[in-house]
């Protein structure tokens, strides 16, 4: 059965590639896999629709009422049949579930060496900032063939970052980071949509994704004339807000040293183990009480309301960069 589905979906897939207006452009490393599953599902749908429709048609013609007082025989019940049409769909469903879920796992695991880009959704536009400090609005420039990871948050309501050609989508939620990754495979220009209803101009919250060759991308970045990298902006805020007064690099301050904490696993006071990622660092800044460390008192004040999402992102970028500066400090 699975084999038949595979062949059928391959056939549909081949046919769809012939008729490009029926298939959205496939420009990322995961698009083919998703489309394969999509066509398998289409095949199953067509298959069962065909079976049901044709059986009904045949019966309708064959057993049409021929006389007003006709009394058809009682066909009784049939346990075997019932079991057949319970078990076969169940097996198909289990197969689909396994296929779809493992594909989903694969698709949601970013390769470790990804370029990182930050996205802030705001009614009704996308603010995008590259680590190098270049900012853009409603446009996203990415190099081809390089995995890109987006860290996203919203300043107001829930939005959704959707690039159909890449088959990726993720809600962008206020008060929290969500992330998404892709690797573009084709140079070109693709739609960027907001796919979660967010108010009056939801339909205009769209933009373009430009996939460029690495050389073009480098040139584009250089032409952006950023004043500072995100990390530098973050360092400025870090000093201005007095974070450094508690977080001394040698760990003697009132707070823990932040050197090298990124991507480490922390054990919290309540026993939870948490990976220190962007979301964790953000949480430590805006709601420090929810991530208290065992050896420290819960004295870190919240910075919620004092800095906007962009500044939080810059702080996060800075704290992350402290990981790589560790060696530098050691050398001193």
């Amino acid at each position, binding site marked *: 059965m699975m084999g038949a589905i595979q062949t059928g979906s391959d056939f549909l897939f081949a046919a769809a590639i012939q008729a490009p207006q029926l298939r959205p452009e496939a420009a990322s490393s995961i698009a083919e896999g998703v489309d394969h599953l999509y066509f398998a599902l289409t095949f199953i749908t067509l298959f069962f*629709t065909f079976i049901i429709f044709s059986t009904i048609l045949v019966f309708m013609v064959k057993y049409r009422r021929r006389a007003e007082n006709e009394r058809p025989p009682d066909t009784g019940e049939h346990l075997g049949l019932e079991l057949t049409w319970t078990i076969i769909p169940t097996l198909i469903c289990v197969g689909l579930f396994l296929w779809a*879920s493992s594909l989903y796992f694969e698709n949601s695991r970013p390769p470790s060496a990804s370029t990182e880009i930050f996205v802030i959704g705001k009614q009704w536009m996308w603010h995008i900032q590259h680590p190098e400090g270049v900012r853009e609005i409603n446009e996203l420039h990415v190099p081809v063939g390089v995995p890109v990871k987006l860290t996203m948050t919203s300043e107001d309501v829930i939005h*959704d970052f959707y690039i159909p050609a890449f088959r990726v989508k993720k809600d962008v939620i*206020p008060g929290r980071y969500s992330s998404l990754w892709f690797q573009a495979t084709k140079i070109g220009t693709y739609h960027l949509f907001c796919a979660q*209803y967010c*108010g*009056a101009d939801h339909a205009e919250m769209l933009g373009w994704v430009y996939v460029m060759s690495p050389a073009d991308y480098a040139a584009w970045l250089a032409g952006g004339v950023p004043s500072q990298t995100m990390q530098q902006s973050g360092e400025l805020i870090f000093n201005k807000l007095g974070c450094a007064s508690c977080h001394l690099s040698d760990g003697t301050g009132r707070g823990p040293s932040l050197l090298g904490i990124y991507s480490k696993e922390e054990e919290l006071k309540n026993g939870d183990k948490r990976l220190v990622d962007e979301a964790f660092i953000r949480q430590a800044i805006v709601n420090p009480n929810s991530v208290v460390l065992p050896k420290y008192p819960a004295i870190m004040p919240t910075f919620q309301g004092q800095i906007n999402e962009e500044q939080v992102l810059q702080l996060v970028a800075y704290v992350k960069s402290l990981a790589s500066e560790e060696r530098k400090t050691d050398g001193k």
Partner: protein
Amino acid sequence: MSTATIDVPEVPTGSRVNYLNAQYGVKSWLFTTDHKRIALLYLVSITLMFFIGGFFAVLMRLHLIEPQGALVQPETYNKLFTMHGVIMVFFFLVPSIPATLGNFLVPLMIGARDLAFPRLNLISWYIYVVGACFTLYAVISGGVDTGWTFYTPYSSSFSHTSVIPTAVGVFITGFSSILTGLNFVVTIHKMRAPGMTWFRLPLFIWAIYATSIIFILGTPVIAITLFLLALERLLHIGIFDPAIGGDPILFQHLFWFYSHPAVYIMILPGMGVMSELVTCFSRKRIFGYSFVAFSSLSIAIISFLVWGHHMFVTGQSIYAGLIFSVLSFLVAIPSAVKVFNWTATLYKGSISYDAPMLYALGFIGLFTMGGLTGLFLASLATDVHLNGTYFIVAHFHYIMVGGAVMAYLGGIHFWWPKITGRLYPDGWARFAALVIFVGFNLTFFPQFMLGYLGMPRRYAVYPAEFQVFNVMSSAGASILGIGYLIPLIYLTWSMRYGPAAGPNPWGAKGLEWTTPSPPPTENFEEIPVVTEDAYDYAESTVNRG
């Protein structure tokens, strides 16, 4: 024959006292406690709401003919789809079959004089009307623009429209559903005629029973959720507002805890109608009675376990996502069992093509397509691409319009002679069924294409490359709209001019067909004693022990 059901002499309508002519005057309707009259009150109000909701749909489709929008401002468009969704779901489809056909038929089918709590039944209708008035007030006072899903924090802190009146309206109607469900459950448990055992019940009753379970267990949760939403909006208590530490995703959990089961509220009664129609028009016992009966119950129960499949891309935990995905596949199985059993019932039957049967066959096909496209969405990897696009819109219209509304119309056509005592012109009815089928597919099939190509839903304007499919869809919607107007006309006509129907024009089984048409106020002069199984069409069947 082994029936002990009463032979009713054929009396021409008009000369006999029935529930319609027992009393006259507006007051006799507004203060009635007769379940049959209350069913008609619902029928009128629900039809009205359907046409209001449909009117909004027509405006939307007209607007979308042009990529830049042909008709209204984006703000207005957002209000259109919100009010379309709210009215169609909460004020039309949720009450549709249960409150009209259910109200009319449950006592008749189980051999009771009325529902267990007739006054409560009338109160339910008034509650419905009050809720509808609130929502219509919201429409008049400027509309709402949150989408029918009311997602926070947009609805709680950002929208400037009449969110609270709408939420209050939906909240109030919720109690109408709850009380209706309560009434059905008690009636089905306690008021069955002697001999009417559970496994002799018509499958429509099983379906209504399963629906009532969802009414009872699900609706209170949406009530409290909307309550919290209104409170949040009024006082900014912070429960859903991330700025104060609230979790906006929690709202989605609570919302879908009701609203997913609610989609089965909309389809289960339709499935019940289907079982009645398929058996009657093929003159066969249903194939696999107990499988169809229990699949209704299992759908009702499993439906409470899958709500998270609406939240796969919201940043819901992946672990929870997996659980919800596998359970969503599971809920598809009982539906599959039903479809196969209906098809098998036709085998060696004596099939006639009266109008209700055409609707029934349309239902089976369109529901199959709608349901199977649900599997695309239950699959995690494909849902990431399809979520929030027109694919979703197409999926649920295939089930709700192609399935549930078809079943509703089929049911209305089937029991119309019983309800009014009159026949409608069969030719027109078949013609309308055909127009609706064609118009429907033309409207919604292109939306699958649009969704896969990536067109997001709730878009007032869209990139020009999507125009062709949108125009096809709009064209289909006008055909569909006309298709819905035809039955409205001939059914109204038949109430006055239709020929008298007689107690059982289709030769159907079931206690409701043993009463005169229209039935007398007390339903049965004497409570019948039931000695045969449901759908005992075969002449040869003798009492099976």
